């Protein structure tokens, strides 16, 4: 028997009524609180919450697409220059890489000229998302990263060429993917003119990496998928927008190399009006 049961019965307020009155009181307070005025339009919080700042609104326009394209040109230039400075470009490919740097520089200037004509601000540095996430992962896989215990690549020259191939395919995909998003035919023509150059770059690199005729196209699918994707000059019948995975670096203890995804640019890779170098 509990203490409550031992209480003497009082007329008008028995134990059951006591609980009813308590519940009614809680409900009344809740209703009053809900109906009362408040200074804050937000959801009720417990404790003191800091004032939030709205994220800037990003509208995908011709200017944003072209600034994104320029940023990818600068990403390629930066990666090529980094590889040249690190001395990990095969000697037979140095001239090709220097040529590609010149081409990407010309592309960036042309694209930024269009940005200016459209009233936008030219973008003259590497793509922020790629520079923050993708490029560091690539460099760590090739030159190693003591902090994460990642060993340097067993073949940096192989990796540099595969990265270059992937970047050129990515650049071609970028321009192709922007075609339906650009608002006028003149801009589409300008974009695909450059995409054509990038596709040629990728094909030249495929011939250098895989050799000829093996590097022309896949004649027969292998029984086992290769551990490192094979570079082909004509990888697909149509220009693909499927993205790719770069496989580079040394094998780890279970025989796996670093995989870096490189997807066709989307909203999180675009360079919006409010972004600057």
């Amino acid at each position, binding site marked *: 028997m509990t203490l409550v049961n031992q209480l003497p019965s009082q007329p008008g307020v028995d134990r059951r009524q006591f609980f009813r009155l308590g519940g009614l009181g809680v409900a009344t307070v809740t209703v009053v609180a809900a109906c009362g005025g408040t200074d804050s339009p937000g959801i009720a919080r417990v404790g003191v919450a800091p004032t939030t700042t709205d994220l800037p609104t990003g509208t995908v326009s011709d200017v944003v697409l072209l600034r994104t394209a320029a940023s990818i040109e600068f990403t390629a230039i930066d990666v090529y220059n980094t590889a040249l400075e690190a001395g990990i470009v095969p000697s037979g490919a140095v001239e090709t890489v220097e040529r590609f740097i010149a081409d990407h520089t010309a592309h960036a200037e042309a694209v930024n000229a269009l940005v200016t004509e459209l009233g936008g601000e030219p973008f003259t540095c590497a793509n922020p998302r790629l520079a923050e996430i993708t490029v560091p992962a690539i460099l760590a896989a090739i030159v190693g990263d003591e902090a994460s215990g990642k060993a340097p690549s067993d073949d940096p020259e192989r990796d540099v060429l595969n990265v270059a191939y992937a970047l050129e395919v990515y650049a071609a995909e970028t321009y192709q993917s922007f075609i339906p998003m650009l608002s006028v035919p003149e801009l589409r023509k300008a974009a695909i003119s450059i995409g*054509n150059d990038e596709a040629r770059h990728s*094909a030249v690199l495929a011939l250098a990496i895989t050799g000829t005729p093996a590097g*022309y196209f896949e004649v027969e699918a292998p029984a086992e998928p290769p551990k490192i994707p094979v570079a082909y000059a004509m990888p697909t019948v149509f220009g693909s927008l499927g993205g790719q995975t770069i496989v580079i670096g040394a094998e780890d203890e279970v025989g796996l190399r670093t995989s870096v995804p490189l997807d066709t640019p989307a909203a999180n890779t675009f360079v919006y009006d409010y972004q600057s170098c």
Partner: protein
Amino acid sequence: MDTDMPDTAPAVASADVASTNGLRRRLLGAGLIGLAGSLVPSLAARAGASPDQATTTTAPPKRPSEADLELLRFAQAAELTAMSLYNTALATDLGPNTALVVARVRDAHQAYAQTLSAEIGKTAPGAPDDALLADLEGSFGGDQASIVAAGAALENSLVATHTELLGTITGIDSAKILASIVIAEARHAVVLADLAGAGGLDDYLLNDAPALAPAEG
């Protein structure tokens, strides 16, 4: 190495760029800047648009207009012409590797023609451009070296042609198809240039081929 293959080293190893490359590269750069400059008049009206104004523009049409269809019919005929020319080449004595490449490129052009046919509908020509076929057929019936050189030139012409069409066509669906074809045909041009014994990077990368034009009338 198969005996039918021209002596072609990998691209980077054979990248002995000719002495005129600096000039050609500058011309390429100037061409791109010129392309940007050529857009100034058409884009001038948009130059002062604020971001808010940009969001209110009308979305481009998805389906091709009547004018687009006329150009797409020409594009399909050009693709079928290419397919026919490669069939002519395959009837000659190409070595196994070259034949493999030419067959792959021929099949690709057939796929492009079929895709364009689906986009055009019942008014698709479904036949090559007779005048173009007659003009080029001789180049695809000679020896292997001349055939692959003619193939590279044809791919470059088709790239230039579809690029020009993209500057006119308004329908988004058609533009997507043409763009994916341009990217693939640029790669065909590199492979065929390699088979033709490309000597330097410009042979792979530069495209100064004129665009094909629809016959008048």
